[in-house]
């Protein structure tokens, strides 16, 4: 229990241990701990940032989706409009075509009828002349009596 030279030895040992700890043990351990703390802090910050980014991206995506839907609706609307317009136009054109074709038909029928009339007239005239010849029993100069025939024909 007495104080002796051990005190000196222990003091030196203590000093050396503290020196060694200060020089070779504490700094690398502290550096590692602080480095890791920084890493973790960075990681947390990064994850927070990513979360915010994700939120932003989601909002943006929703926005774009909405926009796209609106655009699609508009396009569909336009297409419908255009289709009905086309149908209308086609219907009108069809009508016009029909009218034209019908008118043409009428015109052709008219022309045919006139021609037939003319033929008939000629034949009737010829018949009339023949008939008159027979009745009169005489030769009638067809050409000399052409004016009478003409008159008759006009009366038909």
């Amino acid at each position, binding site marked *: 229990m007495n104080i002796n030279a051990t005190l000196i030895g222990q003091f030196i040992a203590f000093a050396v241990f503290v020196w060694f700890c200060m020089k070779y043990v*504490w700094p*690398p*351990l502290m550096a*590692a*701990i602080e480095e890791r703390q920084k*890493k973790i802090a960075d990681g947390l910050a990064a994850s927070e940032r990513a979360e915010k980014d994700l939120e932003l991206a989601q909002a943006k995506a929703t926005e774009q989706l909405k926009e796209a839907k609106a655009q699609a609706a508009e396009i569909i609307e336009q297409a419908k409009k255009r289709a009905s317009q086309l149908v209308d136009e086609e219907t009108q054109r069809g009508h016009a075509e029909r009218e034209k074709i019908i008118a043409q038909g009428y015109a052709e029928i008219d022309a045919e009828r006139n021609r037939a009339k003319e033929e008939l007239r000629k034949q009737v005239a010829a018949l009339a002349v023949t008939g008159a010849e027979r009745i009169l029993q005489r030769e009638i100069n067809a050409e000399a009596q052409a004016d009478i025939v003409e008159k008759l024909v006009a009366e038909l």
Partner: protein
Amino acid sequence: MASEYTTSEYIKHHLTNASMCTTENGIAFNKACADAGFWQWHVDTLAWSIGLGLLFLFIFKRVASKATTGVPGKMQAFVELVVDFVNDNVVSTFHGKSALIAPLALTIFVWVLLMNLMDLVPVDLLPSIAGLIGQYGFGMDPHDVYMKAVPTTDLNLTFALALGVFVLIIFYSIKMKGIGGFTKELTMQPFGHPIFIPVNFILETVTLLARPLSLALRLFGNLYASELIFILIATIGYFQLPLHFAWAVFHILVLPLQAFIFMMLTIVYLSLASEDH
């Protein structure tokens, strides 16, 4: 308990350090050193404390040099836990920048804790082994072979630690306040008048000296007492087993606590020394 001892001899044997000294006949041990006075060495205290200190430094150095900033291994996690614990205490108590305080606190805490933990080694184990080695290796009487395995029950060790802290208290006082400031602190407090300089000086010197003295005596007293109780329990026969167990469980609390107190007070004293009042 060896049967050929009387109880008081047994206790005395277990509480005596193995000492070494040089006489005219060369190196001598134990009883031959009774007259050596100051110049004798407690070889058991020195060996155990330095061994445990080297163990601490070896483990921590190995972890430190392999320390990764990524996912730490179990050993590194444990060491970092200790380092972080010490660092938290230092940061919250010592307001200032110092590269010395934290490693000092770590060294004190772990080293003192390891030495304290020697208290949990069964009291007869190491003295008996030492006795057998002395008896059969060197032909000595085992009664003359001493082995006090808990270094913190040796006043020389606790005073050496306290002396180190005391030197640092003086060093920090002078470094932070200058010799003038330190002298003024010793002489002009608590009574700020030149008449009171002698009174102030006596009071402040007592305050200054009380710090390392209380550090050393607190650690020594606690550990010496607990070791003494362990030895006393060892003398009562078979009832010692539950008692030993209970006392050892209690010391799971006491031993780290004493190491912690020593570390904490060191930080507090150095913090006081480096602050201007």
